[in-house]
């Protein structure tokens, strides 16, 4: 048995940039299974929080503690960026890339990548240059590339922004499948419908503060904070 990576404890983390606090102070715990969804208006700090947990944004203050060392933990997480990074290679080589970095021989990396590509619906375009994919296909590629190392924790930053409902549905199916196989998912989204469909719990952020963190049904039916109530009603927040 490998050592568990969760829970993740965030203790008084604070991110300051250009003399302004853009996130925190914030303390929270990520644990259990399932999907946590980060919601909140633009600029509320969702991206910053995701990147800070992942370890690619350095907090000005505070502690980020996994159950294993930060270096080991990084190897067992993956991150899907809001705008997918597309390597100037074939779709297959894009998906296989993380395996190559870990020293897996090219042939076997490609075999694994082809299987996964097939599974996310990119089977027909595996040999094509990834640069010419549609937005939805690029996002699927990014997702497959994130999943190829079978991460314990997967962070996604608005993966379905600008996608049509069909591509969104495909992506949600892939995410549910990953969740069912035990990947802990943390994802930012603006889409209330998507949050209702996927979330187990909602983290609601506003102006860099974690206003509430509640189970999904409670968040949508009876939000605790006035801020969240206004947000759900579609009011403009201060």
């Amino acid at each position: 048995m490998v050592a568990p990576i969760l829970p993740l404890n965030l203790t008084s983390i604070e991110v300051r940039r250009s003399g302004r606090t853009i996130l925190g102070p914030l303390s929270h715990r990520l644990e259990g299974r399932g999907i946590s969804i980060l919601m909140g208006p633009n600029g509320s700090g969702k991206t910053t929080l995701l990147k800070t947990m992942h370890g690619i944004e350095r907090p000005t203050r505070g502690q980020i503690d996994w159950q294993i060392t930060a270096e080991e933990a990084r190897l067992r997480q993956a991150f899907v960026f809001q705008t997918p990074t597309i390597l100037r290679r074939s779709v297959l080589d894009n998906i296989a890339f993380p395996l190559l970095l870990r020293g897996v021989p090219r042939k076997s990396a490609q075999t694994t990548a082809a299987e996964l590509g097939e599974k996310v619906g990119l089977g027909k375009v595996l040999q094509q240059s990834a640069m010419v994919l549609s937005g939805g296909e690029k996002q699927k590629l990014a997702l497959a590339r994130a999943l190829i190392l079978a991460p314990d924790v997967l962070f996604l930053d608005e993966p379905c922004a600008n996608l049509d409902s069909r591509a969104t549905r495909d992506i949600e199916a892939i995410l549910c499948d990953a969740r069912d196989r035990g990947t802990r998912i943390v994802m930012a989204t603006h889409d209330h419908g998507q949050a209702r469909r996927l979330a187990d719990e909602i983290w609601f952020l506003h102006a860099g503060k974690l206003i509430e963190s509640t189970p999904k049904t409670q968040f949508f039916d009876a939000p605790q904070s006035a801020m969240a109530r206004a947000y759900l009603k579609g009011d403009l927040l201060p």
Partner: protein
Amino acid sequence: MDKIWEALYQAARLIFGFDPDLVEITLLSLQVTVTATLIASAIGLPLGAWLVVNRFRYRRIVIAIINALMGLPPVVVGLFVYIMLSRSGPFGVLGLLFTPTAMIIAQVIIITPIIVSISHQAIRELWADYHDLLISLNATRLQRVMTLIKDGRRALLTAALAGFGRAIGEVGAIMIVGGNIDHVTRVLTTAIALETGKGEFGLALALGFVLIGMAILVNLAVHGLSRTERGSRW
């Protein structure tokens, strides 16, 4: 006017008759410049990529120096290499002055900054694209550089070709360190200078046409490369 036609006729005869002197000079030119381009690329391409990925303290200064070196007058490079290789110079014992090796050294010094500068710019764009992913995937420094070199290989080839184009047409430095010795260090550019001085316009023109032909080929290659790049195939 007659003289010009006569020279052109003679040039055509030399070229299409594969005149042995012309062939020898052309081959030496290619040998020197291809070698110099390979060495300069081996130094310049990884250095260009490395300067992008590593944010060390004096990075900006290093880049400024390289950009300044790009404008170095070749004659001055020739003088510098001459002094280093001359009998009384620090590397005099090697006996390299007036050999093709000396010319290669001079050309490497002239084109390495160009190759570094062009590849640095190209790789910087790619790095802006790839940065988040490579950091997220915990790629090592070496892996980052290798990934950028691999995926930026077209732009890097363009940089190398630009270096080749600059080196093949260069005359000042290699005239000084090579000495334009017949059958030893005589290359296209130095031979043109000599034959023009002697009034041998036929041979000079023939050499000139070969040189222009090479320049056109290189430019076509660069153009083709940048076009396929935009078409985003690989």
